[in-house]
């Protein structure tokens, strides 16, 4: 077990290194002088030169990378051009709303999608199945921001049930906090529900065709037991894999949702940084989201053995 975790950790190193190099190269890959890009169109040549010196752009590329990654490992991600703060400070400020939104969405989506998928699989071909799968295709097809505006229009503007936009920290009171998180979470959950319910249905249907399901029926077990105890448990690994992979969708969705609902999180920061061409921030945001994504999937990989005893390390 320990050896397996060690092996998996080692295996993620090249992946993380690739991401780090990519993120580092982002600025250096721009056509033209990165310093000029950062300085903007109206900068004087002195300003450009100052930026060059500050970023160490005159050093060879690999030296630059080692300096950059050494600083990054020490928690020094440089300073935002636009916000005039260190990037680390900015992220710390912005992380709570994003984490809360993602967590709420995850819980909401999994607790709705898995039962829906199982139900669709159990009624394969029937109208319940068609309705659920129809919803799923629709969920894939409507962009997150459209769902967002639709919900705002209905629940906030037309019926006035929920606040339109904004975010309250959890420290400012749980009621205020949760009520502002409902619409964003539902918005973001739609595509995630579509994804998970689809894969749940497909893998449950696949396990329903297995020989051990026939054995379970030959034992005289009721249909519900066969479905939940035998089929769903065996379908767990692909479902959990997709929940992990789907985190990528969730992260993409966070960027959009925070913009729609005016939530001061890291997703919103990403868009602002791109619009302001604030490269130190863009770099760190991509780096951070990718690391989180890789690490979550690493944890899921390790958790497989809990669901399938055949996987031993």
């Amino acid at each position, binding site marked *: 077990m320990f050896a397996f975790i060690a092996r998996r950790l080692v295996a993620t190193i090249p992946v993380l290194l690739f991401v780090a190099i990519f993120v580092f190269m982002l600025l250096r890959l721009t056509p033209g002088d990165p310093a000029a890009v950062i300085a903007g169109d109206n900068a004087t040549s002195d300003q450009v030169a100052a930026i060059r010196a500050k970023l160490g752009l005159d050093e060879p590329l690999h030296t630059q990378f080692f300096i950059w990654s050494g600083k990054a490992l020490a928690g020094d991600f440089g300073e935002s051009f636009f916000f005039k703060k260190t990037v680390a400070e900015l992220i710390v400020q912005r992380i709570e709303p994003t984490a809360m939104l993602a967590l709420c969405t995850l819980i909401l989506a999994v607790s709705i999608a898995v039962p829906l998928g199982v139900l669709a699989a159990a009624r394969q071909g029937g109208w319940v199945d068609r309705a659920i799968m129809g919803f799923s295709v629709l969920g894939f097809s409507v962009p997150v921001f459209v769902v967002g505006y639709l919900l705002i229009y209905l629940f906030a503007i037309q019926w006035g049930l929920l606040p339109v936009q904004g975010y309250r920290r959890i420290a400012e009171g749980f009621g205020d906090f949760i009520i502002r998180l409902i619409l964003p979470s539902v918005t973001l959950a739609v595509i995630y529900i579509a994804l998970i319910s689809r894969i749940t249905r497909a893998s449950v249907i696949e396990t329903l065709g*297995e*020989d051990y399901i*026939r*054995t379970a029926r*030959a034992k*005289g077990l009721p249909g519900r037991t066969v479905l939940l105890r035998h089929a769903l*448990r*065996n379908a767990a690994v692909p479902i959990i894999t997709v929940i992990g992979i789907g985190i990528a969708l969730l992260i993409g969705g966070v960027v959009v949702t925070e913009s729609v609902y005016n939530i001061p999180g890291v997703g919103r920061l990403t868009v602002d940084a791109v619009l302001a061409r604030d490269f130190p921030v863009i770099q760190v945001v991509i780096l951070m989201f990718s690391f989180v994504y890789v690490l979550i999937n690493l944890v899921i990989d390790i958790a497989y053995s809990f669901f399938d005893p*055949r996987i031993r390390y």
Partner: protein
Amino acid sequence: MNASSVGEGRPVLDVRDLSIALPKGGDRPFAAEKVNFTVKRGEIVCLVGESGSGKSVIAQGVMGLLPKALPIAGGEAFLDGEDVAKASEARLRELRCVRMAMIFQEPMTALNPVMTCGDQIDEVLREHTQMGADERKRKIIQIFEQVRMPDPPRIYASYPHQLSGGQRQRVMIAMALVLEPDLLIADEPTTALDVTTQAQILQLIKDIQRDKGMGVLFITHDFGVVREIAHRVAVLRLGELVEMGPTDDILLRPKHPYSRMLISSVPSMHPAERPRATESKLVLRTENLTKIYGGGSLFSKGHSVKAADKVNIEIRQGESVGIVGESGSGKSTVARCIARLIDPTEGRVRLGEDDVALMPQRLLRRHRRRIQIVFQDPYRSLNPRRTVGDSIIEGPMNFGMERSEAWARARKLMETVRLDPDSLDRYPHQFSGGQRQRICIARALAMEPELLIADEAVSALDVSVQAQVLDLLDEIRQRLNLAMLFITHDLRVAAQVCHEVAVMEKGIVVEYGPVADVFLRPQHPYTKSLLAAAPGRDWEFGKFEAA
């Protein structure tokens, strides 16, 4: 209960005019049509037939486990006097595992991989009895002992993947028998097992059936197994029951032409007399051929397996050598090393004057032509997207033959394998399994090889088709003076087609010699146990004239 009471009293299972429909658009309307048979208390009845005979469908019909596409279309099936063909799903659930139980062909997949074996049987007891937890566990340990499982508490806590195939089948049997049902349905329960394990499982079923006085409906395609286990036999052909009677009657004096043909097709365990060609040219010689799998990776040290260990065999022109062994013995590894589909780790493969064992791919291509191989699975051996003609001419054209010339050769070869040359432009899915295997033989022959390897080439075929393909191969070997290497797990096949056999166990050739010596005067204990385990070994299946 003893043998004299066999067949007394009311039948446990009485099937009357049972018909099971096939989906529309099939080649026939019924999977089983107006089938009649009975299984009495303390009796084993074998349903025997080839693929498509409907034997498994009938078993599933009795259990109420038929897929929706195959509904019961008429007739009755009385279990202790109650018609289960018309019973509700709820009633069937009450009966399953209590009055009738079933074991399946694939012990590897029939158990739930994420539950312990104990839990899987516990489920049966929780569903059908009021027993407390301790009592259930005692009962399960006890039934594990009855199916002669070593260390029952360990098995109780084990997951299926931690057990061998034979042990899994014992778990299935334990599960089926824990509530002592009146009827046990066994659907090819030993087909996926090695021959020695098969012998043990057959013995177990026989013993338990005798002790408990159950009725057993045993489904098989193997007349050796029939001989070992059945009191009575029913022969099925394309959904119709053509003949039924006591085992000895059917095996000795089959009346229906189909039964006669079927029984005649069973290869004899007695080695055939074959003229040797010891003077002819040596085509292939392996010297200390070794293949080691695994090992070498940083984290998986010590996981290497010697799939083939210093294998030495010789094949002469016009002769046929067999390699027999159970699964995992390394027999296919040897064949694949010789054909260079995998790279041997050490040793030599001498093909005439050339050593192809470690030859680089670039030089090897020239020699590919000389060794051809026919694989086990006729459904995956031909590219489904190419016509069979294109598959046959691919090889000759690789070596520079004109398309028209290659096509003419393909037509000739189709005649050689007794297929219609005009069907060369058809696709593989338009042929049956036996026909496809003939096409694969034609493809191999198109290369004019020196050595033809048949890697379990008849194992996937029904016995009557198998007999024809074996005849064809033998005839080709004689006519073309080919050297042949037969890889097979079936001792009967080896006895009939080989001049010499090598017996392999765990990568090592434990015995190698003329077929008569190995079969009639085995020296090595493993060979002896293998021969002793062959079902129906002491029975000479008659060769009947087609009526």
